[in-house]
Structures are given as C-alpha cells and as structure tokens.
C-alpha cells in the first residue's frame, strides 16, 4: 500500500548573523548549510492500518508527510502509495488521498461550510448520489449539522477540525493523512475525532497515517507506530512491543523525611548497575528512581531504600507508554536496544 524507501530530504539554509548587518552580509556572501530534515527513512504500511507517526518537534514528521502527499520533492529515495509516485502523477494521486493539516485549514474561510463541500465535490468530481450519501455518513460521524450553514471563520477550533476532516474524506480517499488532528482540542472533541477516525477506518478500510503529540491518540487509535527523531527512524513496531521491551522499567517515588538523607542512597554502587538501569532524580525531599526490574527486583529496591532512609510516602509504578516515549525522545534508548 505505502512503501517508503530510503527517503531523504535536505534543505539549504542560509546562516545569518543577527541584525541588519548580518542580513546584508548573508545577502552578498551567503553562508549556506545543508540541513538533513529526513535521513534515509524506510517503512511500509499495509492497507487498512492506522499508523502513528511520532517524534519530538522538529523531528521531520511533517516533512515526511509532505513528501508522501506530494507537496515536497524528496532529495533522494522513493515513496510509492497505491502504485503512484506522488510527485510524478500528482493530480491522479491526490484524488486517492485525503490530507488534513491540523494547523492549517483547507476550508473556504469566508463561506458557509456547506459551500466548501460543494466546491470540493466539483474539484474531486464526486457524482451527486455519492456526494449525498457521503455527506450523510460524514454528518453522522462528525456531527456537522449544527454548524454546516455557518461561515468557516466563525467555527470553533473543534468544529473546524471536524469540518476539515470531513472535507478530506468527501471523495472517499484510500489513504488519509492527518497531521496533528487533535492539536489544541478539548477532551470531548478529541474523543469525538478519535471515534470518527476509528469508524472510518473500520467501515471503509481507509489507511490512516497520523502524526500527533497526544499519546492517547496513539494508544487508542494506532496499530503500529513509527517514531522518528532528528530525521532518523528510531522505532518501528507495535505498541505492545514497545511496552514489552520497556515494560520492565519501574518508577519508585518517595518523600524523604530528612532531605539530607539523600546522599545515603547510592543505588549505582550498592547494586553494581549502570545508569541505564537506574536513574535518580530528586527535587528537595521528593525523589524518583526509575529502575530496570529485571536487574533489581521491586522487593530489593524497596527494602534497600527503606533501610537507608526514612520516607513519608512511597509508591512504585509501571512506566507507561508516555514514559517510554519520553525516554525515546530524549534518546535514552537507541534503536539497537529496540
């Protein structure tokens, strides 16, 4: 369905010194630097999958999406979707995809929402009967009825996002690209949008590629995630896999009765482990220790701690997906460990 092979995108960036003087200097003697936004990314998405595409800000997610949707031309490498190369057969290709950029609306700003759909109907050549049933379906899933007659500029962010998603689905695309579809939305609207995506995926078999910073989106929607950082792929697999791999990490939190006691806790030396297996953070009396429960059992950890210091409150938690991803973002784990 979607094959991305060794995809790479470089941008030329002019380095400017600050101020007007720097700008003038850059004008006459540009100091160019090549920035690799996407560095040899390869992945494959089968039909009907919901793929979560994640990574910290500036990781290159949007650049990948923009290459997949035919907006940007890759520096090297290939992507093939439904048998099309986006940049080559752009017009035919985009007829089979839907695109939503959460930060940017594709609706006709000053017109009633209804008008946007009737223009899109013409652009995508949707027959009347299909348009009608399609609108009915989208209406049901995304609840557009309340605001379909309002000018787009008067819509709330949540309404606008629903309207945008509906706009991207009008022509029944085979692949849907959603770039941060839940950004800035409240919990209820997020839920509504997630349900809609799930429903569309289930009923139409639409393949969905989704970028997000909301990890709940990922846990609730995605079968699989691809994570990139600094343009490189750092993880590709099922969420369950990620949890299994990193699920042995535990978080121990406690409050010290005497702040000075902190120095008595020397986990690394006493357990003879490295920083990969035990990570300690403290802020005043509050201490948290993340440790690998394969190396140090929860029982040993607790008894050691309680023997060394007096604590007010203590608890142990599983590292959740958010923690795992945070670790990945911070490059605490590298791809070799996965």
């Amino acid at each position, binding site marked *: 369905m979607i094959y991305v092979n060794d995809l790479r995108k470089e941008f030329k960036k002019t380095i400017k010194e600050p101020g007007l003087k720097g700008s003038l200097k850059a004008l006459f003697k540009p100091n160019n630097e090549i920035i690799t936004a996407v560095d040899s990314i390869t992945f494959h998405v089968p039909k009907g999958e919901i793929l979560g595409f994640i990574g910290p800000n500036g990781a290159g997610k949007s650049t990948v999406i923009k290459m997949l949707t035919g907006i940007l*031309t890759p520096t090297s490498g290939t992507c093939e979707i439904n048998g099309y190369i986006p940049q080559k057969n752009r017009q035919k290709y985009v007829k089979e995809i839907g695109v939503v950029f959460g930060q*940017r609306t594709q609706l006709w700003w000053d017109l009633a929402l209804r008008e946007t759909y009737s223009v899109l109907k013409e*652009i995508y050549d949707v027959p009347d009967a299909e348009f009608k049933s399609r609108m009915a379906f989208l209406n049901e899933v995304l609840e557009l009825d309340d605001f379909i007659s309002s*000018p787009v500029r008067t819509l709330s962010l949540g309404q606008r996002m629903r309207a945008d998603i509906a706009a991207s689905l009008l022509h029944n695309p085979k692949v849907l690209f959603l770039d941060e579809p839940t950004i800035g939305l409240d919990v209820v609207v997020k839920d509504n949008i997630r349900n809609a995506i799930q429903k569309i995926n289930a009923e139409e078999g639409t393949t969905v590629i989704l970028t997000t910073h909301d990890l709940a989106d990922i846990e609730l929607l995605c079968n699989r995630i691809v994570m990139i950082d600094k343009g490189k792929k750092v993880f590709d697999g099922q969420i369950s896999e990620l949890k299994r791999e990193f699920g042995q990490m535990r978080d121990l939190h406690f409050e010290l009765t005497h702040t000075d006691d902190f120095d008595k806790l020397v986990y690394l030396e006493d357990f003879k482990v490295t920083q990969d297996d035990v990570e300690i953070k403290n802020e005043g009396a509050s201490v948290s220790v993340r440790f690998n429960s394969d190396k140090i059992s929860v029982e040993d950890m607790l008894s050691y701690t309680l023997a060394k210091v007096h604590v007010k409150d203590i608890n142990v938690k599983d590292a959740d997906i958010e923690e795992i991803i945070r670790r990945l973002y911070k490059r605490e784990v590298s791809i070799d460990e996965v």
Partner: protein
Amino acid sequence: MGRMFRLHRIFVAQYMKNLMEYKVDFLTGAISFLIGQIVQIATIGIIFSQIPDLEGWGFNEILFIYGFSLIPKGIDHLLFDNLWSVGYFIVRKGDFDKYLTRPINSLFYVIAEKFCVDAFGELFMGIVLIVYSLIQLKLTLTWYMIPLFIVAVVFATLIYTALKIGTSAIAFWTKASGHITHMVYMTNDFSKYPTTIYNKVVRTLITYVIPFAFTAYYPASYFLGKGEPLFCIGGTVIAAVVLMFISVCIWNRGIKAYESAGS
C-alpha cells in the same frame, strides 16, 4: 478543458460570494478605484493639453494606444490577479501546500481562485478611450481587423500573465518574489506611449526583454495604420507564446523546489 471552465465558473461564483461577505470593504474598494480612474483621466487630459503632438503621433492616436493598453492589462487583472499573492505570501507562508493536494493543475487552481472585479474599471476605461479615439480619428476598420484585434488582445494579455507567472515562480526558490514581479510589471507604463519617444535602451528593453511594447504600442499602431501586421500582431503572438513557454517551465521546476513552511 470543459471541466476547467466549469471549475473556473464555480471558483468565480465562490469568490463573488466571498466578496459580498464584506460589503463595506467591497464598496470602499469600488469607490477608491473610481476616484483613481478619474484622477488618471484628468492627468492624461492635462498632459495632452500641453503636448498636442508627440513624435508624429496625435492626441487621439495616443489615446487609442492608451485605451488599447488597458484592455489586456484589465483582462489579466480580472482573471490572473492571484499570481501576485504567490510571490508575496502564498509560497513564503507555506500556503501553496493547498494547491498541491488537489487533483487539478496547481497553476490553474491558483489563477482560478480569484476574480478581480476591480478590473472592470480598466476594461471600461479602455473601451471608452478606444471608441472615443476611433470616432475622433474617423478611422474605418476593415472586417478582418476584428478577429485580429481579438488575437492581439488575447496574446497581449498572455504577455502580462506569462511575466507574472515566471516572476512569481521565482518565489519557489527565494520564498518571496513579489517585488520582482512588481518591478517587471511596472515597466508596462512605458507601453502606453510610442516606443519612438524613448532612447534605445528602453526601446530594446520593452520590445525584446520585457516585451510590453507588444501589449499596446505595436498592435495599436497596426490598427492605426502605422505598423506592419506581421511584426505588430505576429510579434505579439510570438512574444506571448515564447514567454508563456518559459514561464510555465519555470513554474513547473519551481514546484519541485518548493519547500513549504514549518507547521
């Protein structure tokens, strides 16, 4: 082609609805345009009350050339005005993404999206000046001049449009090129007068480099019986075709260089 016309009609209809959304803005625009045109006519009147004859061209002939220049300029303004936005902000802000995710030609989409009703003023002025000057000159046009007039106007319009396409496409590399378009576009002011009044540099510039002379002076001088049809009309056609070819090539290459904007 049929689909393009239908889409164009739909875009125009949407644009008009859009315009009506902001009635005050629309009215203010219409009034200010009217004032601008009155000032322009007055200026021409003042100039020509001082100079009755210009290098062998009479007042009414100059008026005809001026009127003629407004027709292609007005049509270009009416239909292809959105190209300005490409160079000024569409590319820089990354808004060009939108045009690339639709199953229609991106150039067509950009162009069709806006329909600049202000241009009716230019067209109206142009027609009035042409008709008035023709009556004053007592020129009788032969029948085949009508199709030739249409050909001249169409290709003269394409010269304007091609220059705008080519220069605004530079933005795909430089992020903004509105000022380049503006600079090139402004040379059209030279085309309203006979090229013979200029020195060689300007004459060469507006004939062969930025061939605005072919949007007014040359074709108009043919209709006034003072020019070779092959050069005056043929030149307009050739200039338009060559420029359009180059501009569309620049545009298509530009799309490949388009870098969007961070989101």
